[in-house]
């Protein structure tokens, strides 16, 4: 058996020079410190993205992206297709875990200040992927064409329509018209399976290439230590195997969630029906949705909702550009303000999400 594997590996290596890649990875090291655990969330996010792609492709075999057939095709997947229910449930759950993992990864990078020079582009590409991930969630939510999805998309796109200057045009572009219709479904389907994956893949390649090129960032407090005093582990096989171990655990969690809490389908969307009570967006939009509720109808002469949207937009841009305005971290100095802002942001998201959930 061993002989066969060696022969097979030798055959491949002869053609692809795999050993060079193994040697390259073997020379790569990952810093070991008390915060090393956060390094794994990048890998977990990547793993969940791969699952998304694989299950998404399988769903595509049966899904029909039109208002007349979408709901029925999902119904067919859930009831008739062998393991269709499992594929859809894993797709839905891994989407949620993907966003959660991406948020954890983003905040760990933020608190470790790993975005500092020279890793600004890694941060920016990562942030853009997170925004795209939210876009994946929003566009994918409508695809089953059920009641909840229909009205949540209506509410969500209405909020986008309130963005000053470009909001109305953006809303019409998203909806493919004035209202949420079959045209919106086709558009969202296009975004979800073509445009967003293409953009995401480009950003992912750039992101991973930069990480490989620059290596994994180490915390500020280790920078002062001599290179040979820093504890490290080889990327391959040690870190890679740990990554693999975590991926298997995530796969277990995914399977349990998919079996015990399979995705529901609800009722088919009816544009003429009144909106069901308590329409809420997906949990990752909930903090923004809930915050907008607390804004008064008018702040001076501007609508409260518009002020809220502008503030969120402004906060998002500031967050995206954090490597460029956090000068202290870039020159290796401690910046407590960044920690305070980060803690505030985390607390804000958690509290508002809980409030939105229970309201």
């Amino acid at each position, binding site marked *: 058996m061993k002989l066969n594997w060696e022969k097979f590996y030798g055959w491949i290596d002869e053609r692809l020079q795999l050993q060079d890649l193994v040697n390259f990875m073997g020379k790569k090291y990952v810093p070991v410190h008390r915060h090393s655990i956060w390094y794994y969330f990048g890998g977990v996010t990547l793993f969940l993205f791969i699952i998304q792609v694989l299950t998404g492709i399988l769903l595509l075999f049966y899904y029909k992206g039109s208002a007349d057939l979408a709901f029925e095709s999902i119904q067919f997947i859930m009831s008739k297709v062998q393991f269709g229910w499992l594929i859809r449930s894993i797709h839905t759950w891994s989407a949620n875990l993907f966003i959660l993992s991406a948020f954890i990864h983003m905040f760990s990078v933020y608190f470790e200040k790993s975005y500092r020079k020279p890793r600004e582009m890694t941060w920016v590409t990562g942030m853009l992927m997170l925004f795209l991930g939210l876009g994946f969630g929003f566009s994918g939510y409508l695809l089953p064409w059920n009641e909840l999805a229909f009205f949540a998309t209506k509410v969500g796109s209405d909020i986008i329509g309130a963005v000053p200057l470009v909001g109305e045009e953006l809303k019409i572009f998203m909806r493919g018209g004035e209202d949420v219709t079959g045209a919106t479904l086709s558009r969202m389907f296009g975004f979800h399976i073509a445009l967003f994956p293409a953009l995401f893949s480009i950003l992912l390649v750039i992101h991973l290439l930069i990480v490989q090129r620059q290596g994994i960032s180490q915390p500020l407090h280790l920078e002062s230590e001599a290179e040979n005093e820093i504890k490290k582990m080889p990327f391959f096989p040690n870190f890679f195997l*740990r990554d693999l*171990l975590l991926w*298997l655990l995530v796969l*277990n969690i995914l399977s349990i969630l998919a*079996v015990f809490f399979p995705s529901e389908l609800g009722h088919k969307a009816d544009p003429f029906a009144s909106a069901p009570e308590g329409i809420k967006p997906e949990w990752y939009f909930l903090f923004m949705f809930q915050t907008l509720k607390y804004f008064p109808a008018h702040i001076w002469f501007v609508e409260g909702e518009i002020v809220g949207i502008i503030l969120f937009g402004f906060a998002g841009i500031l967050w995206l550009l954090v490597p460029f305005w956090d000068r202290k971290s870039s020159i290796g100095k401690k910046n407590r303000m960044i920690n305070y802002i980060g803690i505030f942001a985390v607390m804000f998201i958690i509290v508002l999400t809980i409030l939105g959930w229970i309201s």
Partner: protein
Amino acid sequence: MKQTLMLLLFSLLNFGSLAIYAQIEDQCLTCHEAIGDKAAELYKTDIHFVKNISCTACHGGNNQLDDMEAAMSKKEGFKGVPKGDEISERCSSCHSKSEVMKKYNSNLPTDQIELIQNSVHWQKSISGNSNILQCINCHNAHGIVPVSNPASPVYSLNIPATCSKCHSNAIYMRSYNPSMPIDQYQKYLTSIHGMKNRKGDVKAADCSDCHGSHDIRNSHDVKSKVYPINIPKTCSECHSNHEYMSSYNIPTDQFAKYSKSVHGVALLEKNDLSAPACNSCHGNHAAVPPGVQSISKVCGTCHVLNAELFAGSPHKKVFDEKNYPECETCHKNHEIVTATNDLIGVEKGSACSKCHDELSNVEGYKSARTMKQLIDSLDTRIAFAKKLVEDAEQKGMEISEAKFKLRDAAQSKQEARTVIHSFNLDKFNEVVKGKGLTTTSLIIVEARESIDDYYFRRYGLAVSVFIITGLAITIFLYIRKIEKS
């Protein structure tokens, strides 16, 4: 007897003196009588004349002056003949004021004008100058007598003819509502109410008993006494009054029974306007109890298929021969309740068992027993299928197709309940077995598969978690091994 004669004498003297007083004092009457004015002649029979209310009350002027020009001058407030809405205004100037009415010892209500203003008649006439109806159209202008006086146009026996003056006039009615029938009076004359009215029975319902008098509203108006939901209550005002109906020798529990019936609950509790009210079976203006042989036709106006099947069934001929009241024989009349399976079969209390017994009517007895067994088995199977579907659904399984088929099964049951009116076992079998039981079997299979799949998923999960965890442990041990070395 003596007391009665004294009272009569006193009354005659009293009224006579008033009349003489009015004749002596009222110069209007003196002159108008002299010129042979018919109004003056009628006025002498008028209740207002009796109550010493002179012409000036309505026409203005001064009835004490013998100079005609002075008496009918503007200075004396002469108003002349009131026209249009002025007429009702003049009447209401006294009849709406209780203090005025009390002066004349009247116990008449004072809300007539208020009521008529909300009625269908208080709309602009086609001329647009006044409302359609004024007091005098029903009560006359001169010679007005109390409602209880047989000479009054609104005396119970005269009301149908009074109303029909307009309502049977095709030319007049089409100016207002071309689609409104004008045969109400003709129909009324053929009704029990109309026939009794013609015979002088003032207790028999006339137009005002059902439609109201001053407050007559359009039958589509929810406040109308003949709005579908209000009809049973309107009819029951007389028909549930035991004392009032005692002379007619008919039951007075129709409303109580109807209220509990499937029709009554639908109409009175669920406000379902498609449910039948009294008039749906008895007719409205031509109200009579339906004849024994026409009951299935009356019920069949709504229950079309049941009626058709019954008409083609062997029961029709037998029922007619035995003078059985068709549908009513099994379903009763006013207290028709939701039909259950217990209505058929051979058990005690079932409708079939009234005629079919094991010894005298073997074939019918067997059919009734088989039909009951079949519909019971369909019920049981549907309930079982429903339970399985609910179980599968509760387990989170996608089972919408089976749920949809449950509707088909329920539909088959409904169809079976209709087909039973053909009293044909083969046809009944075709529906219950051919459709109902076949569909429920399919549902049961699908639901069971879903439930099995639910457990398969859990076992599958256990196996996959075991394998993945085993793999994870292997990797963990391998990491420890390479890191030790």
